[in-house]
């Protein structure tokens, strides 16, 4: 055996690996590239410019933009209503007893509309422009209505659970007993 020699190359291996990546292995021609990721695309920035130029995106006109935004806003506004049938079915299914599931359902039924109402402006911020402010207001009103509707479902639920003080029995504790004006003492033998 020979003596130990100092290491010829002081750089660790990973430095070498980093500096000299393994050679690119050409892929077999039978496998197509995933769409939008051509193997040539990474080779140079010049090709990219070519692609964008090849399919130029047509900028919509401001009116069309407004229309699109309004359409989108309506979608957002009506979204809570679309959930309503599902919520109703689930609430019907969960029964009227006090269980963790129905309690959570009721909690969600209240939390979502209230949070939605509180964030009405944020929800429509991105659709709002100077020109469509008027029609967005209508949308907002529809949105609020829908949230109120969802809230109403929650109220209906807690009512059917018997949590709303709507009956006479709920106020029974506040009713006072009639006091007699006279006081009779039974004085009868033991």
């Amino acid at each position, binding site marked *: 055996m020979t003596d130990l020699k100092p290491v010829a190359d002081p750089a660790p291996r990973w430095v070498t690996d980093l500096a000299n990546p393994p050679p690119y292995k050409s892929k077999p021609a039978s496998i197509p590239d995933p769409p939008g990721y051509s193997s040539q695309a990474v080779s140079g920035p010049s090709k990219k410019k070519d692609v964008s130029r090849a399919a130029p995106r047509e900028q919509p006109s401001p009116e069309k933009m407004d229309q699109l935004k309004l359409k989108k806003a309506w979608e957002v506004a009506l979204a809570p209503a679309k959930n309503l049938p599902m919520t109703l079915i689930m609430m019907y299914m969960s029964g009227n007893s006090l269980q963790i599931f129905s309690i959570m359902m009721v909690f969600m039924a209240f939390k979502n509309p209230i949070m939605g109402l509180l964030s009405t402006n944020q929800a429509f911020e991105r659709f709002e422009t100077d020109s469509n402010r008027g029609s967005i207001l209508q949308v907002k009103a529809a949105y609020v209505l829908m949230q109120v509707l969802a809230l109403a479902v929650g109220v209906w639920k807690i009512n059917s659970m018997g949590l709303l003080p709507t009956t006479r029995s709920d106020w029974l504790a506040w009713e006072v007993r009639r006091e007699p004006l006279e006081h009779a003492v039974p*004085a009868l*033998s*033991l």
Partner: protein
Amino acid sequence: MHLPTQLSALLLVALPSAVRAVFQDEVGHIDYHYELLGLPQRETTFFHKPRRDDKASLLYTLSDVGVLGAVNPSSGAILWRQLLNGTITDGGGFLRAGEGQNWLASAYGQSVHAWDAVNGRNKFWMDFAGEVKDLEVMEMTENNRKDILALFDENESTVLRRLSGNDGRVVWEYMETSGDVPLQVSTNVEKVFVISLRGSAGAYNLKVTILDALSGKREDELVLGTKADVHDKDDVILVGANSAAPIIAWTDDTRQQLRVSVLGQKTRQEFALPADTISVEIHAPHIVQSQPHFLVHSKTSTGHTAEVYHVNLRTNVITKAYQLPFTSGPGAFSTSSNGANVYFTRITDEELVIFSSTSDTVLGRWPLKTTESRLVALHGVSEVVKKAGTDSYAVRSAAVTDTDEWILIRNGDVVWSRPEGLTGAVAATFVEIPESENLAKTLEQEAHSNPLEAYIHRVKRHLEDLQYLPTYLKNIPTRLMSSILGTEVSSHDVKLARDTFGFHKLVVLATRRGMIYVLDAGDHGKILASKRVFDLPTGQKWAVAGIKADDSTGIVTILGTNNDETTVKILPGTSFNIEVLSKGPEGSPATQSAALLNTVSGPRLFPVGLDGELQGLTSDILPNQVAVVRGSDKELKGVAIADGKQTVSWTFVLPKFQRIVDIAARPPHDAVASIGRVLGDRTVKYKYLNPNTLVVAAVDESTKIPSLVIYLLDTVSGQILASSKHEGVDPNKHIECAMAENWFTCTYFGQYRLRDGAQSLKGYQIVVSDLYETDKPNDRGVLGDAENFSSLGPIDAPGDVPLPSVVSQTFILSAPISALEVTQTRQGITSRQVLAYLPENHGIVGIPRMVLEPRRPVGRDPTAAEAEEGLIKYHPAIEIDPKSVHTHERDVIGVQKIIAAPAVVESTSLVFAYGIDVFGSRVAPSFLFDILGKGFNKVTLIGTVLAITAGVMILSPMVRRKQINALWGAPM
């Protein structure tokens, strides 16, 4: 876990195993029981060997409350008991045992019975037409069997029957229709003597009829003495028992001379009694083999003395043998025979002495070692044993003391004492231990000053209380340990104070013998104090008209019917202190009951005279009060009180042929949690909560089969609010009612018809009625939302009278019940139970109100809404479930009344029953929802916590090391 009521109701129905009155580990912890016999009577108490060859003898007695029982003389424990009459009696009865026989013969009223001496099983029970006047056991018969002689008084005629000792069959019967008063029966070996009184009251002659023991044929008739020298039948002291020469002894009514005659002889001998004798007793052996010696015990007002006489068997001459020295103070004598030897035992207040009947030499003398200051024995029985091979004797005496205790003295030591005076209780009440007066005052002061001052005062007070902190801290370890291990803190050094849960209350009990007892309901019913209030002559009973407890001051006032008043004051402090003040009794009974009227200075008891007039009215009585009193036997009166004057405001008279059998009112503390009942659809049925109502149960005897009429009265106006009639009721069985909140219940024995209508049956029934303002939900009736009402107020239209709407339902009970009481809790939130005594099962049952529910749907399953309300389908029969019996395995006999009181914790009601036995317990009708039961395993809980802590302490360094290693380890 707090279940909604409807759910717990369902649980109750679904899980009968969960419905348990008492859990096993609570036995002896929450309940206490004095198993009592009553005070032993002089004539019906004796030592007897239950087995012929056994050396050990038992103590048998037939007590003054009608309990026959056997007691182990060495421990004082009851071996068996029998309640002869089924209920409490006023003394009397007979008890005899044949020498060497394993059975006892007893008689009470019209029946003669025999019992197995070892286990108390009934051997036979014979009912006859006449009343038993005397009972004897024939020691010698022709066929080696001991028979029973029973003397009856049947419609003015004297009947003597000899009953077979085996089965009670009548061997022969002797009847005499002379109109003489049968007195006693006695027998010697071949003759039977019937002693009766001939003549008229005040001047009787003693008549002895001699019968042949074999055939019952009359052989001879003797009239003792020529002049009518027996004044009263009480003057005949002794007709002497089965000795070889039975004697008859009587005195003149001034107690100057004793006249004695040997039965079967016409001659009589007279002996002078010591001067100033007030009563005479004769003690003679009861065995044929014994020498015919007897002792005459004469009592004077200052002391007592005794003389011993011998009967010569051949000449029938009675001679005085010796006289015992006169001793001042009370004393008791008893006889014991051992073969031919006869011993007399004398118990004075200082010593126990035994003599032989032959000479006055003292065979043994022991000073009495008692813990109490002074022991006064009234009468007793004793057993003298000569120690084998020596000249020394041992004696044990069972004596009744003047404090109504039954004690056993063995050679001068009190071995045991039984508090038999607790029997025959006539009134009892719960009373709170008063808070110390200072605290009560301070609290009142704080309540009346302005908030800031009160706050400063309170902070100061709490700072002052810090001085008790070290003691408190010192006690914590013991308390903690006792709490964990479930042991109890010994109450000897703990001062009498209320506890957090309100279980620590006292019970003041008054007995018919004139004794007052104070029991500690929080400490297994321990007797804290007992005191004789009245020295009543024999035959007189203390009757209590009213009892009232003031919880804030700890004063119990008891009004008697004889113009007597007793005050028991419980003083708080380190060593409890109980003061009893009493006055009276004087004159003849003058009080029928007592009315608790509100005065300016708080409620006070006022006696009600026999005519229904209140006495001692003062002007500080608050206005608008009406006292309901009994007029004649079928009349109730409402007496309005104003300015110290009384006027009868209404009179309720029952129709002809009706009489009142029971009256029930709402208890004074009757908390109502809610004024309505919430139905399944969440509407409200409003309860009719008129505190001024009364349930009157009357028996209508106008028809051949009596019926029961139940009236609900308004006690301010006297108006009938509701009434119902139940036909075919037996008026001789228990008819009792109880009332609480907006419902009342009555129990009776009556007829009922099956639904198909074909069969009519009889049975014990309970009817329960709910009162509502109207029958419509969500409606408060004609008074609407008025804040107050007056039963006397004017009404506009005829339909405007606020009458309750009544819903009733009747159930059949599987056992008779009596002494109805409804549990009481502090707020009235807890559901209720009807507590009742089972006279045939010897227990106290709690019937849940949920079962006694008149709105239970009949003939169909409950709808969902009804089920939610907790209503279960109506089932006519209520079985007495052994699991709902609060007395569980205890044999509680002769309960006359049950009282209930609320504790501080809402779940629990304190219960106390008295009569013959004394029983107390805690009842939680809706289970212990606010405190931990005894079954809560604190050891497991603490053990689990400790184990988890230990686990965490062991595991946490390991986990930490592992986490650090994981951080430093190279990724693979």
